[in-house]
């Protein structure tokens, strides 16, 4: 197995409110290896984006990282000082945001935004930076003559490509994709994801891919972690998760969308809605919606258990 790039252990993130803290990420542990695409799936508010932003330490107030550690390339992300953190952001870990329109500055041309990034991290002279910006744009499939275009002159897909070029500009070892295709149509979504995978295979960076679309994720990622109510309920290789999901929540998610090639299986949805993180249910957090729940589920929180290589799930009933 290849080397580990990022190790997250027992990460807890709280949002401090007047009514006390709300734990948005609760004891999450996850490894990301070099050159691997790890997907994070989960409903809105399950803590996936919060976790990703906590890793870059860019969560705005009232967020606080209240437990755990994150080792990235041998450095503890939670103890390094502000200036090292600044160099690390974008230089080693970069991010593609959900809305490309909002992520790009409307009054600065896309080329200039890329050269700015390069110059700010001291990699090049202005001429070199511009040359590199052209290379980057071409690499993500944008014609070189669009370098002086502004965000509003590009289509949605092209804007997201620019964001990807920006994220790759400093050759980071980890790229966080925070629902990068939510604002795009399915055709464009596929193109963009294929582009990312292609670049990833070529350059060899690792990807943390966040989405609520489990089907898309299983196609795209090497491994997938499923979030439910601030915790990871199941993590494992995509193939294992698709063929043999262990946690009832993962099973429910997989049953809730149709497969193209499979038979005419019954579609079903998971009853109920996710719990409030202010007052999470005792025991297994999924038990109020789980059709299999027994007494122990209501009383004791399940520990993750291994079910095959790299495949673990937190459920009392999984076998």
């Amino acid at each position: 197995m290849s080397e580990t790039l990022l190790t997250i252990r027992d990460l807890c993130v709280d949002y401090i409110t007047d009514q006390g803290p709300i734990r948005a990420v609760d004891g999450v542990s996850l490894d990301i290896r070099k050159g691997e695409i790890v997907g994070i799936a989960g409903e809105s508010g399950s803590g996936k984006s919060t976790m990703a932003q906590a890793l870059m330490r860019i969560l705005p107030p009232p967020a606080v990282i209240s437990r755990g550690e994150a080792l990235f390339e041998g450095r503890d992300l939670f103890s390094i000082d502000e200036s090292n953190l600044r160099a690390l952001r974008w230089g080693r870990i970069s991010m593609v945001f959900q809305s490309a329109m909002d992520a790009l500055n409307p009054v600065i041309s896309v080329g200039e935004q890329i050269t700015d990034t390069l110059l700010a991290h001291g990699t090049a002279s202005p001429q070199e930076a511009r040359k590199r910006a052209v290379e980057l744009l071409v690499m993500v499939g944008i014609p070189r003559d669009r370098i002086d275009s502004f965000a509003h002159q590009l289509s949605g897909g092209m804007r997201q490509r620019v964001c990807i070029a920006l994220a790759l500009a400093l050759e980071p070892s980890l790229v966080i994709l925070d629902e990068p295709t939510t604002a795009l149509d399915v055709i464009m979504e596929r193109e963009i994801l294929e582009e990312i995978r292609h670049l990833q295979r070529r350059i060899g960076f690792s990807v943390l891919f966040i989405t609520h679309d489990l089907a898309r994720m299983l196609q795209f990622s090497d491994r997938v972690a499923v979030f439910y109510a601030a915790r990871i309920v199941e993590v494992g290789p995509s193939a294992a998760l698709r063929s043999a999901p262990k946690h009832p929540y993962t099973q429910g998610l997989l049953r809730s969308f149709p497969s193209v090639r499979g038979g005419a299986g019954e579609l079903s949805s998971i009853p109920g809605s996710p719990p409030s993180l202010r007052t999470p249910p005792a025991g297994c957090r999924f038990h109020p919606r789980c059709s299999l729940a027994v007494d122990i589920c209501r009383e004791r929180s399940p520990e993750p258990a291994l079910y095959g290589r790299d495949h673990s799930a937190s459920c009392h009933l999984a076998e």
Partner: protein
Amino acid sequence: MSGSTVKRESGLSAWLVAIRHDRKAAAGAVMLFFFILVALAGPLFVGDPKALVGVPLQPPSAQHWLGTTGQGQDVLAQLVAGSRTSLAIGFGVGMVVVMIGALVGVTAGYFGGRVDGLLSLLFNVFLVIPGLPLAIVIAAYLPTGPLTLGLVLVVTGWAWNARVLRAQTLAQRKRDFVAAAVVSGESSFRIVACEILPTMTSLLVAQVIGSTVYAIGAQVGLEFLGLGDVSAITWGTNLYWAQNDSALLTGAWWTFAPTGISLALVGFGLILLNSGFDEITNPRLQMEHAWRAHLKRMGHEPTRSTPVVIER
């Protein structure tokens, strides 16, 4: 952590609670409340401010706590009596100026086109007219008196508010919630009053406070220059008479210092209150409040990056 129902105060009581929690706002509110109380009830407790009660230019004594003026009137009585007119004109002008500004500015911003062109022309003209000289000219031609001064201040003061609110309206106007209101058939008046204006609450409050500070200052300034009714008792005329009686030459500091200090404190109180209101109307700042308190409890400084506060 409380139960699933979170108690939230609404309206005025929420504001009062928030003012109590914010140290700056509380200090400002106390100062302001004190002066308003003095203006309302004070005149009942002091003597006739115009009466000649003693030897002119006496320093503060047990009999006359703040001394006497060059005419032999009681300074304390004049200060208290003057606060009533000065504060009334100040707050009145502050409100009216913002109301006119909101009416003109929001109308221009919302309707756009020719309406906007015309109204923009109007307030741009008022903007380029230098305010204080115009105030002097108008005050010189109209019959003197506090109300005239108020009118002058309104005429010269509304245009800035209109301009700021027009820009704000233009920004809000393009947002989807306004489009949704149009589609759902709300009248233009309702959209402006119930959809757009509430998004500017903090701005409007800040403008009322800023305009009040301006009105009090400008009013006192004009009266000090002798452009008000010098026989009325206001803070401005107090200063006018102090200057007239050569207070600085004779070293009679007690004839102008109390008024000057009161004026400064009222302005200071208003500004403090403003920063408090900013926090109340901005939920983001309010959230940060709890966050900062938590960090402090755990012995950390707020940082730009997400703080790591490990519980031991």
